[in-house]
C-alpha cells in the first residue's frame, strides 16, 4: 500500500472503498472472512468484492449457496467462536430471508447469555431503488434492523465513510449492519489511504447553515447537498447533516443544529411512515430543541407503496432534489 506522495487526493468509488476496507482488514486480521452469494469469481452482484478471491482464495472469500437464512446463521456462529465474518446479502431485500438469524439470534445472544459471549458479525446490505429492478429488489429496509436492540446500523453516504465504517464495524464487538446504496457504488470521492475508522454513532455535518437543518441518510445526503447549493444562491443557508448511523443515533449533533436553525427537514429514501424520520422528529420533539423550532418538522420519505418498475413511477416514489427544495423554501419563508 502506498502510504505517501499525493495519495491524499486519491479518489475511489464507493464500491472500491468498501473493497479496499475488506482487503485491508483481511491483511491485518486472519480471522476476517467474506461470505455471500456470487462474491467469488463473479465478484459480487455489484462488483464490490471484485477480485479479492484471487488474492485470498475460496477459503476466505466464500461463495455460499443461495441460502440466506443458513448463510447468515453460519456467519453468526462463526463470529461467536473466533472468526470475523463479513456477510453480504446480495440485495438487502433478501435479508428478509435471513431475519431470523439477525433479529432473534445475532441481536440477542449476548444479552440472553448474560454477556458471556459477543457476536462480532458484520453484514452488508445493498439497498435502494433507481435500478429498475422493481418491488423485490429495491427496498430500503434499514429501519427494520434499527428497531432491534443489540444491533448497530449504519448507512454510509460517501466512499470515505463506506471504508471507515466497515473497518469500524469489524472492530466493534457487536453485530453491525451496513446498508449501502446501490446507486452510490459508482460514485467517486476522496478516500484516505491505509487503515482508519469512522466512528459508529457519529453524524457528520456536511455543510453548515443557519436557516434550516436537513437531516439526511445515504443517497439523500447528496440530494440534500445539491439542494443546499441551489438554496444558497437564493439566500437560504441550509445545514446538511449526514446521519451515518441510525442506531445508535447521534442525538447531540442533530439537536445542536436544530437549536441553531429552528427548522428541520428529514429526508430518507425508505417509506416515510414509521421510519428514520419519525425517530429523528421524536428525538427533537422530546428534547429542549423543540422550544427552538420556528416551524413544524417536515419529513420527506418514500411513498406508501412498493417500488414500481416503470422508471418514471420509480423516480416519483422517492424524494428528489426538487422535493427537498420545495420543502426547504416553504420552511425558510415561513410558509409551513
Amino acid at each position, binding site marked *: 500500500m502506498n502510504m505517501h506522495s499525493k495519495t491524499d487526493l486519491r479518489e475511489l468509488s464507493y464500491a472500491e472503498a468498501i473493497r479496499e476496507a475488506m482487503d485491508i482488514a483481511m491483511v491485518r486480521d486472519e480471522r476476517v472472512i467474506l461470505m455471500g452469494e456470487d462474491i467469488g469469481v463473479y465478484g459480487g452482484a455489484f462488483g464490490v468484492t471484485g477480485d479479492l478471491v484471487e488474492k485470498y482464495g475460496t477459503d476466505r472469500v466464500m461463495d455460499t449457496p*443461495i441460502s440466506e437464512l443458513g448463510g447468515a446463521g453460519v456467519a453468526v456462529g462463526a463470529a461467536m467462536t473466533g472468526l470475523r465474518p463479513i456477510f453480504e446479502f446480495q440485495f438487502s431485500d433478501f435479508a428478509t430471508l435471513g431475519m431470523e438469524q439477525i433479529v432473534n439470534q445475532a441481536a440477542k445472544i449476548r444479552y440472553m447469555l448474560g454477556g458471556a459471549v459477543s457476536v462480532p458479525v458484520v453484514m452488508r446490505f445493498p439497498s435502494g431503488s433507481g435500478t429498475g429492478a*422493481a418491488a423485490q429488489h429495491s427496498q430500503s429496509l434499514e429501519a427494520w434492523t434499527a428497531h432491534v436492540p443489540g444491533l448497530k446500523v449504519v448507512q454510509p453516504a460517501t466512499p470515505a465513510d463506506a471504508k471507515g465504517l466497515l473497518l469500524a464495524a469489524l472492530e466493534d464487538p457487536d453485530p453491525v449492519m451496513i446498508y449501502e446504496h446501490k446507486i452510490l457504488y459508482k460514485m467517486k470521492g476522496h478516500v484516505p489511504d491505509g487503515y482508519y475508522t469512522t466512528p459508529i454513532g457519529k453524524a457528520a455535518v456536511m455543510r453548515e447553515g443557519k436557516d434550516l437543518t436537513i437531516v439526511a441518510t445515504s443517497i439523500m445526503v447528496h440530494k440534500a447537498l445539491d439542494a443546499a447549493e441551489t438554496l444558497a444562491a437564493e439566500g437560504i443557508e441550509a445545514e446538511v447533516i449526514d446521519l451515518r448511523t441510525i442506531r445508535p443515533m447521534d442525538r447531540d449533533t442533530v439537536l445542536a443544529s436544530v437549536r441553531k436553525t429552528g427548522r428541520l427537514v428529514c429526508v430518507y429514501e425508505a417509506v416515510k411512515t414509521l421510519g428514520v424520520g419519525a425517530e429523528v422528529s421524536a428525538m427533537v420533539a422530546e428534547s429542549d430543541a423543540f422550544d427552538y423550532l420556528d416551524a413544524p418538522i417536515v419529513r420527506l420519505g418514500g411513498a406508501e407503496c412498493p417500488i414500481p418498475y416503470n422508471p418514471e413511477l420509480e423516480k416519483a416514489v422517492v424524494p428528489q432534489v426538487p422535493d427537498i427544495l420545495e420543502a426547504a423554501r416553504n420552511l425558510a419563508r415561513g410558509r409551513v
Partner: protein
Amino acid sequence: MRDTVIPNNVPYAISRYSAEELKEALKKMYLIRKFEEGAEDSYMRGLIHGTMHLSIGQEASAVGSCMSLSDEDKITSTHRGHGHCVAKGADLSRMFAEFFGKESGYCKGRGGSMHIADPSKGNLGANGIVGGGLPIAVGAALSAKRLGTGAVTICFFGDGANNEGAFHEALNMAKVWNLPVVFVCENNKYGMSTSTERSTAVKNIADRAVAYAMPGVTVDGNDFSAVTEAVDAAVERARNGEGPSLVENVTYRWRGHSKSDRNRYRTKEEIAEWQSRDPIAAMAKLLVDHKIATEDEVAGIEADATRIIEEAIAFATEGDNPKIEEVTRDVYTEETAS
C-alpha cells in the same frame, strides 16, 4: 390429445399429442425464443432500464412441462419466467407492454420483467425471490384440494432454489398433506455463477425427493418429449390424488444470468456445446421426422412467431405510461389512508 396406446420407438409426445397440439407447442417455443431476443434487443437499444433474465435454451422445459395443463391448472414461476408465461398461454403484446413498463402491460407497468403474471390463465406469477414460489405453489395445491377444483399446480424453480429453506419446507408439507403439486426444477447447472457442484450436496436435484418420500426423476430438459413424459406422469399422479412429485429438467441458459454477467465462471466451449443441443431445433426435427410437420410448415411457424413478436413490440411501444398520480393504486384492495 390422442387416446392411444403408445407404440414402441415412437417418442412419448408424438403418440400422446395431436399434430395441432405439437405444432402449437413448437410455436410457443419459437415465441419464447423471439420474445427473449426482442427483449434483449430492446435493452441493448436503451429502451428498457432494469435487468432481465433470459431463458433462451430452456424453451423445451417451459413448454413441455405445461402440455397437459388447462387454464384451470396453476403455475408458479421464477425470475427467469418469460418462457413459463408464454407456455401457460399469455398474450405476447401484454407481456411486452409490461416489459416496457406500460399501463397496458400485465402488471400495468408496476411489475416489469421479473413479475409478469397472468392469473386468468392460471399463472400466479414470476418471482424476484429465489424459492419464493415454492410454498405459494403448495398453497395453490391446498386450495385445489380443499375446494375440490381438480386443478394441479406446477411449481417451476431453478437449481439454485433447492438450497433455500423454502424448498425443503414446501416439499415436506406437500407430501405430508398429499397435495396435487408438481415441483419442476429447471436445472441449468448454475445459480448465477455458482455451479450445482459447488452449491448442492447431492448430485441430482431429483435425489432430494427421497427425503420427502415422493417420486423424483431427472430428464433431459432440452428433449421436449422426455420432459412431457415425465411431467405428464407427475401431473396425472397429482390429479389422481397420489400427491406431489419432483421432476428435474436438465437444461442450460445460453445467455448470462442477467445483463451484468461476464460469464467468468464457465467456458465458451461449454456454452457452445449446449448451443449445439438447441431444444427448438430438436423439436422441429422431431416433428419433421415423424411427419407431423413439413420443413415448410416449420418455417411458417417460425415466421408466424416472428410476426407476433413484431406486433407485440409495436403494441408495447405505443402504450401509455402509467399515471404518476396512480402510483399508490393497488397497494390495498380498497383505498386505505396510510
